C-alpha cells in the first residue's frame, strides 16, 4: 500500500464534495482520541495564529460540539452535531457561524495501516458548488504564509 505522507485532496466534479487523505504516525486509537478529546482537538484544528477554545463538546452519537477561534480579538465560531461516533468512523455536521445557513456533512474514516500507523480519510459534502468553491477559496491568503513560516520552523527544529 502506498503511504500518503502529504495530504492529498480531491474536489469531486459531479457532487460538491472535498475529499482529503493523509497517513499518520499514530495508532487508530490515538487518531480517534485526537478527534474526540477536546483538549487534544483544540491543539491542532484551528488555523495558524489562532487561539482555539472548545466551548461545547459531547463526542458521542447524537452529541454536539462548538469551538471558537480567535485572531486579533476577532472571534470565529463553528458548531455542529456528532451524528455518529465510533472508533473507525465519525460523522458530524459543520457550520461556520459567520454563514449560519451553511452546513457541511463531514465523514471521517480511520484505517489501521499496522506498525502504529493509520490513514485518515475525510469527506466534506456541502450544500452547493457555490459553497464548496467558497470553501476552497476561503482563507486563500489566511494561514498560507504563516503556515510556511511555521513549517520552516518545524523543519529547522527537526520536528518534521
Amino acid at each position, binding site marked *: 500500500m502506498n503511504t500518503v505522507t502529504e495530504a492529498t485532496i480531491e474536489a469531486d466534479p459531479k457532487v460538491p464534495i472535498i475529499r482529503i487523505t493523509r497517513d499518520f504516525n499514530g495508532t487508530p486509537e490515538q487518531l480517534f482520541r485526537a478527534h474526540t478529546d477536546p483538549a487534544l482537538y483544540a491543539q491542532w484544528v484551528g488555523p495558524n495564529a489562532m487561539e482555539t477554545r472548545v466551548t461545547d463538546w459531547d463526542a458521542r452519537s447524537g452529541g454536539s460540539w462548538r469551538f471558537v477561534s480567535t485572531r486579533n480579538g476577532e472571534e470565529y465560531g463553528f458548531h455542529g452535531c456528532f451524528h455518529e461516533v465510533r472508533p473507525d468512523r465519525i460523522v458530524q455536521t459543520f457550520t461556520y457561524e459567520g454563514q449560519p445557513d451553511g452546513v457541511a456533512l463531514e465523514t471521517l474514516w480511520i484505517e489501521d495501516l499496522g506498525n502504529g500507523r493509520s490513514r485518515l480519510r475525510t469527506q466534506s459534502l456541502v450544500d452547493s458548488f457555490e459553497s464548496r468553491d467558497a470553501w476552497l477559496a476561503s482563507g486563500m491568503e489566511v494561514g498560507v504564509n504563516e503556515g510556511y513560516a511555521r*513549517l520552516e520552523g518545524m523543519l529547522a527544529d527537526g520536528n518534521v
Partner: protein
Amino acid sequence: MTADPLSRVFAALSDPTRRDMVARLSAGDATANQLAEPYQMTLQAVYKHLKVLEDAGVVSRPPGPQPRPVRLEAEVFDLMDKWIERYRRQAEERYRRLDAVLARMNDETPTETEEQKGSAA
C-alpha cells in the same frame, strides 16, 4: 474591486449559468447564440455573462469573421489547480499540527487526557 486574477475567476464561476457555460465549452468552442440556446434569457443577458467570463480570463473570443466562437482558456484551470493546492496545503498544515499532537500522546502519561474525558462526559 479586487485585481487578484484568482478572485476574478472565482467570482466569475460563482454563478451557476456561467459555470454551465464553462462546462459546455469544455466540450468544444461555441458561438454566443449556441451558448444561449438552452437558457431562458435574452441574448443580451448571455453576452453579459460572457463578458464576465472574458474579463476574468476564463474564456476568449479570438478575432475573426462573425459569429466569433467562444473558447475556453485552459490556463485558467491551472490557476484553479493552484487554488485547490493552497487549500490542500492548509489541510496539510493542520495535519502537521495533528502529527505533533500524536507525537506528544506517545510521550505523555494518560492521566491528563483521562481527566479531560471525565470533565467532558
